[in-house]
């Protein structure tokens, strides 16, 4: 059964790598629902967060193929239960509407939105949350003349992760130590690609 998976990829910061990773999906005719790529906590290492709808078997193979790329350090995949995730959204609405209607103010507080820019003609609000929360606020603001809306890609933290630093140290060593279990598999298939 297809479900939402979040693929997390640690890579070198290299020109062309986005393409190399993107074509892994397009080659298999898998649509990328959301894609975030930005520097990780480690200098020189980028972190991709990619959301797709697929069956687990396909995602598992895909993660291995991605990890096989020379400049990819590690690829993980997780279901929504296994991650904490957020999106950020910006909403642009006419200021006079907001100023006049107390109800709107209350709504915004309810949704944890905060004003980023207030001008005479428009105000930009920002909120973070999951897909449905952000969508709800769109629906709420629409009657008040929502001018523009934008949503960021998903960013996600893997609940079970213990950090990438120690892993990276091992990658930098020529001969990885026994404690780096890359191919944990036998009888523990469910643990593959989780940190």
């Amino acid at each position: 059964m297809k479900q939402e998976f979040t693929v997390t990829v640690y890579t070198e910061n290299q020109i062309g790598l986005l393409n190399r990773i993107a074509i892994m999906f397009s080659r298999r005719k898998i649509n990328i629902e959301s894609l975030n790529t930005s520097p990780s906590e480690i200098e020189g290492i980028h972190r991709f967060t990619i959301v797709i709808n697929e069956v687990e078997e396909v995602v598992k193979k895909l993660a291995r193929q991605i990890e096989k790329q020379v400049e990819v350090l590690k690829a993980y995949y997780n279901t929504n239960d296994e991650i904490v995730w957020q999106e950020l959204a910006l909403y642009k609405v006419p200021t006079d509407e907001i100023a006049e209607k107390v109800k709107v103010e209350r709504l915004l507080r309810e949704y944890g939105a905060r004003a980023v820019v207030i001008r005479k003609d428009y105000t930009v609000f920002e909120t973070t949350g999951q897909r449905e929360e952000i969508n709800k606020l769109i629906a709420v603001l629409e009657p008040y003349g929502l001018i523009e809306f934008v949503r960021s890609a998903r960013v996600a933290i893997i609940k079970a992760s213990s950090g990438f630093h120690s892993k990276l140290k091992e990658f930098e060593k020529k001969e990885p130590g026994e404690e780096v279990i890359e191919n944990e598999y036998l009888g523990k298939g469910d643990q593959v690609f989780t940190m």
Partner: protein
Amino acid sequence: MSTIEKTPAKGKTEKKPAVTNISGSVAVLEAFLAEGVSTIFGYPGGAIMPIYDALYDYQEKLHHILVRHEQGATHAAQGYARSSGEVGVVFATSGPGATNLVTGLADAMIDSTPMVCVTGQVFAHLLGTDAFQETDVINITTPVTKWNYQVTDATEIPAVLAKAFYIARSGRPGPVLIDITKNAQIQKFDYEGYTKCDHVRSYRPAPIVRKEYIAAAAKLINEAEKPFVIFGQGVILGKAEQEFLKFIEKAGIPTAWTVMGLSAIPSDHPLNVGMLGMHGNYGPNVLTNECDVLIAIGMRFDDRVTGRLDKYAKQAKVIHLDIDPAEVDKNVKTTVPVWGDCKETLPMLTALIEQKVYPQWLQKFKDMMKEEEDACITPELNPTTDEMTMGEVIKTLNELTGGDAIIVTDVGQHQMVACRYAKFIKSKSNITAGGLGTMGFGLPAAIGAKVGAPNRTTVAIIGDGGFQMTLQELGTIMQTEIDVKILILNNRFLGMVRQWQELFNDKRYSFVDIASPDFVTLASAYKIPGQSISKRENLKKALSEMLNTKGAYLLEVMVGKENNVFPMVPQGCSVAEIRLK
């Protein structure tokens, strides 16, 4: 931030004293020398002229073979890599020169052939301006390269090429493309010597070998009653032929090869039960679905090997030895994965298994071979028809070479017949476009194969269709005087497609009737001697003449027009449904 590691690896190459003011082009050639490159296959052009200018002074040390088309250069480099076990090297210019490499790169990618291609590129300041002969070669070749990189600054060249060679030849080998802008080729910089690369942070050439998997695999093998070994090119790429023989001889297990695994062990080894796959042998295909433990070594369960996957070896426990973790479970669900280089893992496995023989089980393969002989092999090798068969040509060739020749094939019926019937006594003797099925591969690959193994007889077996795809490389053979024996098996059809049309499309022969020029006259225009024969009584003499002629030779053998290759696993059928006719 660039990932090119500037710090040299410890204790490798001695650091030479700094040489100032060498150009990027010279740095490329110095890198080749340091990596042991002796031959380059290439074609010059505007954007790679500075490198060719530098090459003018390196002619003594670096042998450059001028091909007639860049695709030919890639296939020649592949042939070279496959016969020598070294990295094949290609030069091409930007734009059309670079796009012409794509087929060869794709072929090398799918067949794991180590290759480094260097392409020229327009000046860095012209990138993205649609300059003359500019093409986005990095993005075009991304899906068909193991790694690629664009150099715009000469100082990067030594480290980038070191990384290129390391990536191309380590782990599961593959093609690498380095695109160098013209300004970087010209640019002078302070050269500090060349340091070989032996580690890239984000790259793990081989997974860690896990002893517990090997123990689990050995246990399965020791408990098996009908074990079956199937192996591919991984044994050859891993240079693990001896380790492999020790393993099967101790285990006593019947062993079958894939097309890419051919020649890794001698054809007549008592445990060699033949070839797998669509046109493989009867026993190995049928008994795949009868064995209790299937041991796959250095092979990737291609669909041409497995046939219908949901009916493939479902009864068997599967042990898969592979250097590429992504191959495990990709197509066939594995019971025990043995990840690692088989040169390392096979001896560990051999140590844990019991010495055994399976006479009854082996007999089953032999019985099925007898059936296949009666139905397919005898009519093919000893035909009673007037027209010659491809099989009898290969059989006669075997008799004359004793199996000591490199057989390079193109793609189609002749390829399958050659793979089925050619005899091998040495590894790296079978060179063919297995995964990609590239028609036109044969002739240029044979040129490279001969250069890579100059002391071995090299026979290019090619169909009339495939030969016409890259026949311009006859010019390369003429100019470089390469001793390639060209054996064209001419059935006046695009035979494999015709066979499918006969069997599955009610003989609707749609555009498979191909006319050919007079190949012998054509060859003579290139100063290559040859002859064409159509009568059986001339076959042996003609093949002898081909083999005994000094230098290149073209022999065209007219064979039956509508002969089919059998056995055959029709597409979408299980391996057990293999047809003998």
